[in-house]
């Protein structure tokens, strides 16, 4: 039986903020020069939210999503970095949550539940990850902890690219390689083109002309994985996102009008067994269930969605998500993408500021970043990346995935 997650009380998100997604591709990024640390990102994003909601006095509680600061930054106890955002947060209750790359999504759910439980009217929700502290191959070790540790030894040096390369390989075998690879390249192009419209995006400065041709370079299994090239993968990113999760009272206290907030209509939260391999590599079953739960709880279908923010850690994951949502039948995701349906101006625009591949993937921040993007789009504040909205389709959906389709949070938002 599917649980329905329709709030008994109105919950909104507002005052969202993203730092730059820092890493290769950004002009400011120099791998050998000192860079901001974990706390700098948390403070930058957190302070921007506080400024818009009337200060720390309006915050009842803090929650922070982060995957692996313990290894990337030798830092634990992250809840205690929330008070470093503002003196006014000292001694307020704070929680850190972890669910690999879905940590940000879990932070949102944690904040939403606190508002629903009426233990808070306003929750400051932060997601953060600072990953450029180690070289990519050592970062791969750290990110691999999102998989089952007993699989690490037999896994690829680049563990998660290896996992999704296996998925891509299985998909190629079942549905054909050429068209799928073309769709992956198209996905990459869409991601970068959208990122060029968002000044905080990691690919904002990308000026490559023929992105699809670039993305069609043959994978090289000697130096990387068998079925993916580097353009199929999200990059290594440093960044934080923060947002306020509020009740109607919270919104009032902050002095924010409803049209500057979006309502959390419903959510889906699904967990699969880390020790069990996927039944079918060509499907994202956990993602499918989370999205279904969210849409059913909201009483809507995919046709009511104005836009989707999906977890495209790899291009193939973007295509599989379109299928998991039922937008395309199994094996037809590539056509859906190649026909332009997921593009800006298409039937249902995906990842309008670039998603994980274009905007960046500071792992623990990604779920919160998706909420900020949907907030901006649905309130018409997305700047150059703004999509056209139809009053007939006021909803936005986010899908945040941890590990290889293990921990998934999907949230449905509606214009406030």
């Amino acid at each position, binding site marked *: 039986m599917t649980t329905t997650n329709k709030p008994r009380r109105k919950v909104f998100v507002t005052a969202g903020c993203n730092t730059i997604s820092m890493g290769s591709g950004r002009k400011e990024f120099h791998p050998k020069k000192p860079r901001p640390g974990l706390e700098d990102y948390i403070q930058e994003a957190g302070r921007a939210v506080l400024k818009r909601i009337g200060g720390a006095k309006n915050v009842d509680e803090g929650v922070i999503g982060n995957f692996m600061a313990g290894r990337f930054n030798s830092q634990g106890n992250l809840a205690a970095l929330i008070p470093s955002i503002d003196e006014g947060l000292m001694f307020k209750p704070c929680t850190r949550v972890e669910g690999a790359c879905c940590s940000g999504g879990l932070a949102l759910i944690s904040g939403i539940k606190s508002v629903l439980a009426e233990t808070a009217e306003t929750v400051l929700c932060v997601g953060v990850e600072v990953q450029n502290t180690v070289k990519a*191959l*050592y970062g*791969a*070790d750290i990110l*691999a902890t999102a998989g089952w540790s007993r699989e*690490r*030894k037999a896994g690829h*040096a680049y563990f998660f690219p290896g996992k999704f390369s296996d998925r891509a390989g299985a998909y190629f075998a079942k549905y054909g390689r050429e068209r799928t690879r073309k769709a992956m390249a198209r996905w990459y192009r869409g991601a970068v083109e959208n990122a060029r419209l968002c000044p905080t995006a990691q690919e904002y400065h990308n000026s490559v002309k023929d992105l699809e041709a670039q993305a069609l370079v043959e994978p090289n299994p000697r*130096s990387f994985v068998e079925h993916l090239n580097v353009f199929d993968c999200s990059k290594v990113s440093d960044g934080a996102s923060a947002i306020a999760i509020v009740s109607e009272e919270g919104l009032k206290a902050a002095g924010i009008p409803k049209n500057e907030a979006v309502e959390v209509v419903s959510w889906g939260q699904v967990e699969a067994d880390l020790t069990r391999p996927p039944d079918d590599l060509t499907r994202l079953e956990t993602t499918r269930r989370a999205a279904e739960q969210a849409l059913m709880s909201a009483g809507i279908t995919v046709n009511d969605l104005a836009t989707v923010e999906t977890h495209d850690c790899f291009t193939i994951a973007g295509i599989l998500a379109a299928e998991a949502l039922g937008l395309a039948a199994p094996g037809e995701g590539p056509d859906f993408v190649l026909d332009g349906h997921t593009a800006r101006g298409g039937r249902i625009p995906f990842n309008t500021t670039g998603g994980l591949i274009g905007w960046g993937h500071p792992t623990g921040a990604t779920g919160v970043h998706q909420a900020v993007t949907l907030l901006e789009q649905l309130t018409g504040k997305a700047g150059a990346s703004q999509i056209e909205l139809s009053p007939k389709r006021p909803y936005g959906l986010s899908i945040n995935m941890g590990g290889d389709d293990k921990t998934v949070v999907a949230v449905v938002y509606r214009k406030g």
Partner: protein
Amino acid sequence: MNYAERLENVAVLGAAGKMGSGIVLLVGMEMADLGLKPENRSKKYVLHAVDVSHPALSGLMKYLREQVRKAAEKRIVALRKVYADRADLIENRDIVEQYAADVLDVIRPVTILEAAAEANVIFEAAPEDMELKLRLLTRVASDSPRQPWVFTNTSSIPIQEVDAKARLEGRIMGFHFYNPPAVQKLVELIRGQATRPEVAEFAEALAKSLRKTVVPASDCAGFIGNGHFMRDMLHAFSEVERLGRELPFVQAVYAVNRVSQDFLVRPMGIFQLVDYVGLDVCQCILRVMDPRLPGQNLRSPLLERVLGQGVKGGQNHDGSQKDGLLRYEKSRPAGVYDPEAKRYAPFSEFQADCDKRLGPLPEPALPWKAAVKHPLKDKALAEFFGKLEGLKTLGSELARRYGARSREIGLKLVSDKVARSADDVNEVLLTGFYHAYGPINEYFSERVTP
């Protein structure tokens, strides 16, 4: 003794030097890789890294630790398979550290030359001094019961001479790595008259396993690489002298250096390259070549003069450039040495004047970096040099003389049978010197020397 057995015991002489340390790195990794193969697990691979001082050997070990780690990081995908049966090595970091330990476990840094006497294979990377090389090889290779095979990294000394004088009876071959050996793809292989076929076979197998680009050269002093470079350098010095009649010395040096880089689309100017190699090293090479190639006047009084004043070039331990004919700021040329005043004149004193005198580059400009990446490189170069020919400027004249001389040198290496073909000459310059085009080309055809 097969390939894997022969490499069980190796010595590198001059191991802590610029070339030696790279050879230790490459050969040490090759030995460790062999040792990691299941069929070789019972063998014990040992590389004696011989040099004169402990501080230098400490520097070598530090270099090796860093470089092996970097190499392991690059090869992580393959190394995970190599260590697949080691249940204790799980993360990439575990594997990189284990590989570094396995390579370093092969290396024995020593100051005692006699340690090399137990080697089957000796790489000789001592300074370019015939007497020194003979002294070393006589002590460890000539009468050794192991009858070791010697691979000398000489870039100029004829192999046959070393063979005869060190009484090696054909157990020697020229194995000329380019600097730095770990990065440079080119290897010149030189057989002496008596070099045994099995020695040559081994050298080819090793070069292949190290994924080097091999160009065979005849056993003629300087071989192909220095055969071209030294004559190219001497042309530059003679141009400085010629120009020096009209221009101050420092301006003449600046002009020739700039022409040989920007106008000829090369990665660096000729005097920057001389500084990179080291003026002292260039001098050693000329001293080898000149007496063995009579009538060619392979000498430079100017080089001798500045060397006499202690100007040497070469690199610091961190790879940064030492001052030589040019002075460097952040490894970029910023001044020219004036042997009269015994000081460096900063570019700022004369650069604008001198550039004006040289005249503009053809439009659109074609910097070396753009040229090597150009999808239609040959066409772009032909266009650039075509326009260069149309310019009636000092820069164009110097460049055309320079390009023509370089071509002449290349053709002579072929007609003297130092190189098998024009392609081989071009390969050496393209790969070993990173040129954008070979010296034997259609861009420059006039004759410079009578």
